[in-house]
């Protein structure tokens, strides 16, 4: 590629010709202010905050959308540019609610931070402001068009990363809103509830449907036995909410925080993950034996499951019937645990701390409710909601001593920790499947072929004299790619891991907003969080799911054996094609 020479703020540099001014400036340590720009999404050029002066240009140019040219002389700061940027921000603010102090994003709002950084200290414009009701039909994601600044990041992530294209700009001019087709409620749309629109939103136009009030109420209700479970990826990300670097594992502190908040027992979704692997590996081995319904598609990610039901209902027979680890554990809490502790299932209130907004949807699915209609999981909190509860309660999280999960549903193997990252479910399944198929313990537990934080991975793995073709997809556009390959019969696959969010649960729609020096959905954050999970796995004595002694005991006492009638009744589920049908 041709090298281009230019100067930015009087500093000379040369960059390849496909570089934009904004990217070139970053190489010099100049961060041009920006709002709609996202490095992993297409260029929108909607906000004009990143304007710069280019010698010979009549107007300011948007640096995100302008490629470099030979001999270009760029100025990123001049009194005129600074004034223009300030005006642009003021114009956005003028059409934005003045309620920062009571907004969910107060303190981590990109618009607020930008306005401060650009020196907006007065509100000079006064115009008509748009008014919209908050759209709350979805259990997972709520939409507040009044706060929307029309940067279209959500539109782009929904289409370009998730392949869902549920959101679009409707109407025009001052009436423009971002919404699903026909301005339907999110609950009536093809929304898969992944929450990535919340992650990329610079303001609070998208948020999770908050469940903290219900949890506070349960904690204050003496007739309820309130218990918690935490997903694998929480421990690797929660520290960021308290100023720690991404990838600082905080498992023990999280357990202690839950106890201090008043949870009577704290269990680990990891136990559900171990159990999922035992059931799923059993399913895989059976299907391999009969050469039946291959590839087996994993079923842990509730966003992926909803995507399958809207977009690929023809693939439903291939999906594992295993409930997600969260739902498996919740079922056990309201059956096995209830019986063991002599409690009525209805008095147990199960709160799941999840990196995920789709889990809020999953919890309310009728498939995950008991025959008499109560949900197995009573409330799902995102990592963000949980962080807020800890802060709200005055708990100094980083100073907490490390607590221990309650037995027996709090013990897990290293395989379970991997569930939080892309490739982790695959690796955990391969460990168990390999040991079961060969009848021998594995000497090498790490399956590096599936480990990278990358959208699409494929590997061929030799186990017991046969080759298993496996694939791992995260970000549902990648799921489309792999499922189309399967449908066209381009290659025979045996097991495919699918996760809705790019990078897996560690980058879920409910995870903390990015810390300074990172951008939202920065793969580097996902890598750091994944590394923490791999470290936790390495440090554990037992790293293969089926060797979890409490799982073995659970089968002896309660579930008979993997795939038994009882196990099916409690641990497996069904899926239904959903309307509206998605467009692939």
């Amino acid at each position: 590629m041709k090298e281009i020479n230019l100067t930015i703020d009087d500093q000379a540099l040369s960059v390849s010709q496909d570089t934009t001014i904004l990217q070139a400036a970053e190489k010099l340590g100049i961060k041009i202010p920006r709002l709609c720009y996202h490095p992993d999404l297409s260029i929108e050029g909607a906000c004009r905050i990143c304007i710069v002066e280019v010698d010979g240009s009549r107007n300011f140019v948007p640096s995100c959308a302008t490629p470099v040219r030979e001999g270009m002389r760029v100025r990123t700061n001049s009194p005129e540019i600074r004034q223009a940027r300030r005006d642009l921000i003021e114009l956005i603010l003028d059409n934005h609610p003045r309620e920062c102090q009571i907004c969910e994003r107060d303190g981590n709002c990109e618009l607020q931070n930008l306005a401060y950084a650009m020196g907006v200290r007065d509100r000079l414009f006064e115009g008509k402001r748009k008014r919209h009701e908050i759209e709350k039909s979805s259990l997972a994601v709520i939409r507040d068009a009044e706060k929307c600044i029309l940067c279209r990041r959500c539109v782009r992530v929904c289409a370009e990363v998730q392949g869902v294209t549920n959101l679009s700009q409707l109407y025009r001019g001052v009436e423009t809103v971002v919404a699903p087709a026909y301005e339907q409620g999110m609950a009536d749309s093809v929304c898969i509830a992944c929450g990535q629109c919340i992650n990329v939103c610079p303001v609070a136009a998208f948020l999770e449907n908050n469940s903290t009030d219900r949890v506070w109420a349960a904690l204050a209700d003496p007739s309820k036995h309130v218990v918690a479970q935490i997903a694998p990826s929480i421990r690797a990300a929660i520290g960021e909410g308290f100023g720690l670097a991404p990838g600082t594992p905080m498992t023990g502190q999280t357990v202690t925080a839950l106890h201090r908040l008043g949870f009577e027992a704290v269990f680990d979704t990891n136990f559900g993950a171990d159990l999922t692997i035992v059931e799923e590996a059993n399913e895989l081995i059976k299907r391999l034996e009969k050469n039946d319904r291959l590839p087996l598609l994993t079923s842990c990610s509730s966003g992926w499951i909803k995507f399958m039901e809207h977009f690929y209902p023809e693939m439903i027979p291939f999906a594992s019937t295993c409930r997600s680890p969260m739902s498996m554990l919740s079922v056990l809490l309201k059956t096995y645990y209830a019986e063991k502790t002599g409690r009525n299932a209805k008095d147990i209130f199960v709160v799941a701390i999840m990196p995920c907004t789709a889990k809020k949807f999953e919890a309310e699915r009728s498939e995950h409710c008991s025959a008499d209609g109560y949900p197995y999981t009573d409330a799902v909190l995102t990592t963000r909601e949980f962080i807020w509860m800890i802060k709200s309660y005055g708990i100094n999280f980083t100073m907490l001593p490390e607590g221990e999960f309650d037995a027996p549903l709090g013990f897990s193997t290293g395989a379970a920790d991997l569930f939080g990252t892309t490739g982790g479910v695959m690796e955990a399944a391969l460990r168990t499947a390999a040991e079961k198929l060969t009848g021998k313990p594995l000497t090498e537990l790490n399956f590096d072929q599936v480990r990278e934080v990358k959208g699409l991975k494929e590997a061929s793995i030799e186990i017991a004299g046969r080759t298993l073709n496996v694939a791992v997809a995260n970000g549902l556009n990648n799921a489309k790619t792999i499922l189309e390959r399967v449908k066209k019969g381009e290659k025979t696959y045996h097991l495919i891991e699918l996760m809705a969010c790019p990078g897996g649960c560690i980058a879920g729609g409910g995870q903390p907003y990015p810390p300074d020096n990172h951008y939202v959905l920065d793969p580097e954050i996902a890598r750091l969080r994944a590394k923490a999970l791999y470290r936790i796995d390495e440090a554990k004595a037992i790293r293969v799911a089926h060797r979890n002694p409490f799982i073995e005991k659970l089968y002896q006492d309660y579930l008979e054996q993997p795939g038994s009638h009882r196990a099916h009744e409690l641990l497996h589920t069904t899926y239904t094609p959903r309307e509206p049908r998605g467009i692939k």
Partner: protein
Amino acid sequence: MSAESNQHLDSETIAFMDACLQKEHPKSYLIAVLHKIQQRYGYLSQAHMDQVAQHMQIPTSIISGVSTFYHFFRLQPRGKFSISICLGTACFVKGADKVLDAFRTELGIELGETTPDGLFSLESSRCLGVCALAPVVTINDKIYSKVTAKQVPELLNSVKAAAID
């Protein structure tokens, strides 16, 4: 009209879509297809847009974005009586905006909408070329001249009465 729109798109429209799909950049023919449907059915129903989405494999959110962006597209069936108020310069100067307000208040609908009973729909037009008669209102093919806001309730009543006869 609305019963018809619940049905599937007719074979002519489907054939048109199929022809578009054979061309280079087939999805760029979305607007042409929407025009065709509006020509045939008078407006774009959600059911029809859903069918276009499936047939052309274009997400409904995109179709919805296009159909709400362009003023030409109607998203509701026209009423039995289509009221059009000229907002051209001469009519506007003569108070067409007040006439429009009166229709909005009387009918309880905005421009581009249809009353729930399906009787009236409200639209605006630009200069009909009879500025001497300003402000001008047309109801279906009939022209009403020098309309004032005050006359609007009576005008609507007379149209309704004529409809019952």
